[in-house]
C-alpha cells in the first residue's frame, strides 16, 4: 500500500511537471504572450559570460517588453534555462525550453552546448539564433540554427594576422582545452593561418578540471614563443593570467571573444601581463544608437543589484551583452516579419531578416551565419583595469 502511494505521488509530480509547460498562449493579464527561450550557461566554465549575455537580452526585454505580430500586441516572456556550460547537460536544458513552448531560442554563449542542442531544436522545429557561438559546426547542415556573430575561421585568421602584424611574432604558443569545441576549433584555425603567414606554433591542450597552469606557462617560456594564444574559457583565463603574472610571462597573451569579460579585467588589473582580444563590440562610439544602449544599460545596472552582480560587480559592458541585446531585437524582427509565433513560420522568413544593431549590421548568409567581415581588437589597460580600443582588424 505504502509503495502504491509513493508511486502515485511520483506520477502526480511528474505529470504536473509535464503539463506545466503546456499552453503558453495567454497570460493572467489577458494579453497574448509570446515566449522566447534564453539558452545560456549560468554556471560552469562559461557561467560568467553566459550571465552577461543573458543580461543584454533581459535589458532589451525590459525596454521593449512587447511586440506587435499581425496587428495583435504580444507580451514577450523570456524563458531562461541554465545549460551549465556542459555538453551533456545542454540537451536537457534545450528540451526544457521546447516543452515550455517557446517560439524561438536565443543562445548560447559557448559553441559546444549549441552544437549539442542543435538537433533538439531542429527536431522540435524551434528556430535558434546563436548569439556568440562562433564555431562553424553550429549552423552547418542545420536549417534551424542561425547566428549573429562572426565565425572562428575568421576570428582565428584575424588573430593570426594581428600576432604577425602587431607583435611581429614568429613563434606562437597555442593552448586549448581538451574536448572543447570552441577553443580547439579556434586554435586550429589560428595555427592554419599563422603557419600560412610563415610562423611556427607549439600546440598543447589541458584536460577538464585543470587549475594548475604553471607547467603550460613554463612550456611557452621555454619554447621561445613570441605570443601566448589561448582562446579558452574565462575560468581558465583568470588562472592563466595569475600564473603568467607569477612567472613574469615575457610575451603578450592573445585570445578570442570569450576573454572580453570583466573577469579577465579583474585578473589583469595591477599586473604586467599584456592581453589583447578580438571582439564584437567596442564602447566609446558616438553613434546615437550605441550611446543610448551604453547609457541605458549602465542605468539598468545601477538600478538592479542582481544585474550588477551578474555583470561582475561593475558597469563595464562586455561585447556579449551588446550581442545579447541585438539578438533580442533580431528575434522581434523575425516575429514581426513571420506574422506568427509558430517556429516553422519563423524559420521560413529568418534568412531574410536584417537588423542594424549596436554591434553593426546583421544579415544572414545561406548557412544561417552572420555576414561580418571585421573584428575589433581590444587591449587591457593594466593600470586602470579597463579595455582600450586598439584597432579594427580585417583579414588580408
Amino acid at each position, binding site marked *: 500500500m505504502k509503495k502504491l502511494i509513493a508511486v502515485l505521488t511520483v506520477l502526480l509530480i511528474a505529470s504536473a511537471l509535464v503539463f506545466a509547460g503546456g499552453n503558453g498562449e495567454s497570460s493572467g493579464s489577458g494579453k497574448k504572450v509570446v515566449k522566447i527561450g534564453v539558452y545560456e550557461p549560468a554556471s560552469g566554465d562559461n557561467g560568467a559570460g553566459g550571465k552577461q549575455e543573458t543580461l543584454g537580452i533581459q535589458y532589451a526585454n525590459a525596454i521593449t517588453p512587447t511586440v506587435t505580430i499581425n496587428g495583435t500586441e504580444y507580451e514577450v516572456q523570456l524563458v531562461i534555462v541554465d545549460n551549465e556550460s556542459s555538453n551533456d547537460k545542454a540537451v536537457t536544458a534545450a528540451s526544457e525550453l521546447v516543452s515550455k513552448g517557446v517560439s524561438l531560442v536565443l543562445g548560447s554563449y559557448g559553441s559546444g552546448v549549441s552544437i549539442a542542442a542543435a538537433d533538439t531544436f531542429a527536431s522540435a522545429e524551434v528556430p535558434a539564433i546563436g548569439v556568440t557561438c562562433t564555431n562553424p559546426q553550429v549552423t552547418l547542415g542545420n536549417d534551424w540554427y542561425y547566428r549573429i556573430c562572426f565565425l572562428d575561421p575568421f576570428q582565428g585568421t584575424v588573430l593570426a594576422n594581428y600576432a604577425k602584424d602587431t607583435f611581429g611574432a614568429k613563434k606562437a604558443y597555442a593552448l586549448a582545452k581538451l574536448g572543447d569545441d570552441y577553443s580547439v576549433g579556434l586554435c586550429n584555425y589560428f595555427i592554419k593561418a599563422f603557419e600560412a603567414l610563415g610562423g611556427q606554433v607549439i600546440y598543447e591542450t589541458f584536460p577538464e578540471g585543470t587549475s594548475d597552469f*604553471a607547467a*603550460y606557462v613554463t612550456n611557452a617560456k621555454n619554447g621561445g614563443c613570441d605570443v601566448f594564444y589561448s582562446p579558452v574559457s574565462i575560468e581558465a583565463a583568470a588562472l592563466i593570467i595569475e600564473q603568467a*603574472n607569477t612567472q613574469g610571462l615575457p610575451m603578450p597573451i592573445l585570445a578570442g571573444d570569450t576573454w572580453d569579460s570583466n573577469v579577465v579585467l579583474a585578473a589583469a588589473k595591477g599586473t604586467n601581463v599584456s592581453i589583447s582580444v578580438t571582439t564584437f563590440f567596442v564602447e566609446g562610439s558616438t553613434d546615437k544608437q550605441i550611446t543610448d544602449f551604453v547609457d541605458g544599460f549602465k542605468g539598468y545596472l545601477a538600478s538592479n543589484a542582481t544585474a550588477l552582480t551578474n555583470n561582475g560587480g561593475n558597469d563595464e559592458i562586455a561585447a556579449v551583452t551588446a550581442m545579447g541585446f541585438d539578438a533580442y531585437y533580431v528575434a522581434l524582427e523575425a516575429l514581426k516579419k513571420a506574422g506568427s509565433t509558430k517556429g516553422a513560420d519563423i524559420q521560413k522568413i529568418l534568412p531574410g531578416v536584417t537588423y542594424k544593431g549596436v554591434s553593426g549590421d546583421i544579415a544572414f548568409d545561406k548557412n544561417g551565419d552572420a555576414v561580418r567581415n571585421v573584428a575589433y581588437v581590444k587591449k587591457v589597460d593594466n593600470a586602470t583595469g579597463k579595455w582600450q580600443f586598439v584597432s579594427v582588424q580585417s583579414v588580408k
Partner: protein
Amino acid sequence: MGFLQTNLPYLLAGISTGGQYALIAIGYTMVYGILRLINFAHGDVFMCAALMVIYSASYMPLYISLPLAIVATGVLGFAIERVAYKPLRTAPRMSAMISAIGMSYLIQNLALYVTGGLTKYYPPVPFISDSIEIFGAMTKRVTIITPFVTLVLIVVLVNIIKYTKIGIAMRAVSRDFETAQLMGVKINSVISATFVIGSLLAAIGSTLFFSNYTGVTPTVGGMPGLKAFVAAVFGGIGSIPGAVIGAFIIGICENIIKGLGWTTFSDAFTFVLLIVVLMFMPTGLFGEKATDKV
C-alpha cells in the same frame, strides 16, 4: 644553470602540488583505516574550506578569517560524519559509500547555489602569495613553503597517533573495530576526531592550493580529491606515510609529464597509475597485507 632554469619550475610545481595532494590524501586514508569507508565528500570539504575563506575574508581581516575557516571546516567534517555516516554504521558498507557520494553532490550543489555558479577568487594571502625568484625560476612563495608545511603537519600527526590517548584509540579501532569497542574505546568520539583531523588538514591544504591556483568553483574539489585518492591507494590505503609519498610521486610525475610536452596525458597518467597499482600491488606501497575476508 640554463638547464636548471628551464626545468626547475616543473619540479617546484610538482613538489608543491604533491604536498597539497598529501594533505588531502591523509583525510582519505585515515577515514579508510578506521571505517573502511571511502569518504567521497572529502574533495568537496576541501572546496568548502576555500569558499569559507573567500566569504569570511570580505568581512574580517585575513588573520582572523583563515583560522576561523580552518576550524569551521573541522566542524563541517564532524557534521558530515554525524549526518551521513553515523546512522549507517551498522548498515552494509555499500550503503555508507552511496551516502558518501550523495553527500559529495549535496555539498557541490549547495556551493553552486551559494556562489551562483560563478568562479570566486581566493584572496591573496600576504607573504605566501608573493612572487619570488629561485635560481632564475619565478614562482609564488607558497610553492616553496608547501612541502615544509606538509612535512611538519605530518610529523605532528604521526606523533599524535603514536603517543596520545586518542591516537592509541584510533590505532586500536583501525585494528579491530568490535574488540576496541568491547575494551571501552568510545568509538563515536574516535571516529569524529578522525573526521575533524582529516578536514583540518584538507583546509590547510586548500589554503596552500588556492593561494597558488586562485579560482574556486563548486566542482574544483573533484580533481584534486580524485588524485589524492589515487595517491592514498598508491601508497597503500590506510597508511599515512604511504599516502604522503604517493601524493608527492603523483604531483611530481604529473608536472614532469607536462614539461615533456605530453600535456594531454597528464591526468591520464594518474589514473593509469591507479589501474596498474590495483592490478599488480593491490595493497599499495605500504598497505596492510590483505589477510581478511572478502
